[in-house]
């Protein structure tokens, strides 16, 4: 059993999960929803083992390091954290329909990683040889995953609100009737960001600490740093907006979606379009 075979199984499991969740949406058949959750969990277990195996394989090759060192590994880890956060929400709040809007993010990530990214295990370049790598990457991606989940929930919220205002009678029969109430969605959006924001803060701080340790500058307005601050600002605005009247609900949902778009740009866009200190992505 190799890690790459297990990663393919993971991708397949997330695909099955997404299809089941969509079928659940269309048919309202509860067992399809349970199936969707189980497929996601099965994929998650396979992925956990695969990440562990890849870690071990890197040691077998003689230059062992945590599998968090290039774009492929980071995308795989990102999808893992998305399913982790989804699983926690699913088990805690029992609104598994959220899976229909969150699992696609994970599937997209895994499919891109498996089909489009070089997956070789490379030795660590000197800049990455530090324990800070682990702390920094784990906190950042857990934060990103919370924002991904919040974005999915916000999309659900906007659909729900849109259909309710359009025609209350038609909505009762549509897929939207499966959604939790708008109030619950708004609350869960807030809760996901409430977990994600401290994690992002820790991610930025560990990044700054590492930069200071490795280069002697904790903040140099590098594009990656700046974009992480932009993301932090967007969610800080979101949190403050909640205590002013008129900024809950629709506007909060939009801020959450904008925040996740900024997160994705911070994660991928900066590497693909701008230059900077983070080595993954681009042509390397």
């Amino acid at each position, binding site marked *: 059993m190799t890690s790459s075979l297990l990663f393919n199984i993971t991708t397949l499991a997330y695909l099955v999960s997404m299809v089941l969740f969509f079928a659940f949406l269309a048919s309202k058949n509860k067992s399809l929803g349970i199936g969707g959750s189980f497929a996601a969990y099965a994929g998650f277990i396979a992925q956990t083992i695969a990440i562990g195996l890849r870690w071990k394989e890197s040691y077998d090759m003689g*230059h062992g390091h945590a599998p968090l060192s290039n774009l492929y590994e980071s995308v795989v880890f990102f999808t893992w954290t998305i399913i982790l956060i989804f699983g926690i929400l699913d088990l805690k709040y029992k609104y598994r329909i959220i899976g229909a809007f969150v699992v696609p993010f994970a599937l997209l990530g895994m499919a891109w990683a498996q089909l489009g990214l070089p997956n070789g295990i490379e*030795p660590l370049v000197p800049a990455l040889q530090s324990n800070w790598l682990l702390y920094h990457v784990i906190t950042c991606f857990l934060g990103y995953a919370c924002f991904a989940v919040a974005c999915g929930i916000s999309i659900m919220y906007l659909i729900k609100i849109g259909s309710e205002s359009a025609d209350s009678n038609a909505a009762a029969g549509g897929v939207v009737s499966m959604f939790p109430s708008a109030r619950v969605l708004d609350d869960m959006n807030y809760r996901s960001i409430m977990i994600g924001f401290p994690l992002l803060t820790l991610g930025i*701080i560990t990044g700054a600490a590492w930069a200071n*340790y490795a280069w*002697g500058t904790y903040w140099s307005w590098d594009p990656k740093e700046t974009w992480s601050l932009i993301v932090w600002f967007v969610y800080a605005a979101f949190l403050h907006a909640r205590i002013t009247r008129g*900024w809950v609900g629709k506007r909060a949902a939009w801020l959450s979606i904008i925040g996740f778009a900024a997160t994705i740009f911070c994660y991928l866009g900066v590497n693909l379009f701008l230059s900077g200190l983070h080595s993954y992505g681009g042509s390397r």
Partner: protein
Amino acid sequence: MRTGPQSHFRRTFLSTTNSGFLQSLWDFFCSLKLAISLIITLAVTSIFGTIIKQNGTLEELQKEYSAGTIKLFDALGLFDMYHSWWFILLLYLFTVNLTACSIKRLPRVWKMASEPTPFLDSGLEKSLSNVYSFIAKGQATQVKERMTDFLKANFGAPVVTERDGEIHLFVQKSPYSRLGVYVVHLSIIVVFIGAILGSLFGYKAFVNIAEGTETDKVYTRTEKAIDLGFTVRCDKFSVTLYDTGAPKEFRSLLTVIDNGKVIYDKRPTIVNDPLSYKGITFYQSSYGPAGDPIYHLTARARNGSFNIPLTLRQGQMVRLGDGSTVQVVESTPEVGPMMPGFSGPAARVEYTPVGKPPQLFVIFKNFPNFDDQRGGEVIFTYDGSEEKFFTGLQVAKDPGVWVVWLGCALMVVGICIAFFMSHKRVWIRIAGGRVVMAGSASKNPTGFGILFDGLVEKLKQVEKH
């Protein structure tokens, strides 16, 4: 926006001094709308600096932008925008706003945390959404004891007070969690103070030290020399590579000498493991050749007439005994990535026999017999090169960095308090056989509602028996 007693006082006070302007200025800076606008403005303007090249040389800028654009961007400070006057001004406004908002709200919040309301009067009862009441059996003192025990067992030991024949029980948890958000605000100011300290009393510099040489000066970005007050010597610099040819380690052996005393002797300094002395830290950052490398070759005649070691610089032509000439054209410490199947150092050599056209070929240190196969009259072996490097060190002194870390620690603690803790309060009032239980929390009303409903269920159980 709610108007607390504090700002009411301020308003009356200020209006008597005819300072309507000051009042509106204060209100402006206390506004949450300003805070949200500033945060969004900072986020949006920050994008410019990630798209427009920062701190580039004029030549670099001319490649990307027209003369007019350069003039415009330069006037707007967009080429060093994070240090431009307007961005710094935004940061100052943000700080003032943060401070004003905190000053305005803190007294009321502090009062709520430090001066609990142990009485559940009817006004308070009406303002709470979690209320449960019932008729209790038995004497008032018995009911009081039952309720006290109930709270003690299920939520916390209550404070019991009697007033106007009514008995009030009150328990609260983590009242100071209300201050979490102000800890976060304070932490941001602490981080800023640390950054200002660093920029006033610290510096960022760099220095290149060739192997075997030393320096007591480093240079800022504007080439200004700074005296270290001690000497740093680079004894050796080396690069190690993985099999793939990717760099594995950049290592400088640094010796620090202060007043003739050796403080560090040949201490390895690698990326992610800097050297610190007297608050000044040296970071392995770059390297390069210091002067031309020297090559060692051996030329051996196939007929055995000569076998001589050669020492030559790149491009330097050397004449052999038979009148032919040889020179090294280029070299590499690791040939693997360029020529699969080979490894180790290699040199490309140009050999010109007498009266014949020059021949170009590669010789390898790890394959000394390789050149034999070329079949030439003279067989070359490559014995390696001696290359002197310089090590490029980033040098930083930042006395404010610990203040920044203190601010970061405060921020994490503050955020955790602000998000994950809440000031929970539960009251019970006993009056004329009627018992009223009520509760509130500063955050997460849904979660507290569930907790309160649980309390009610348990209370019903207790009262059944």
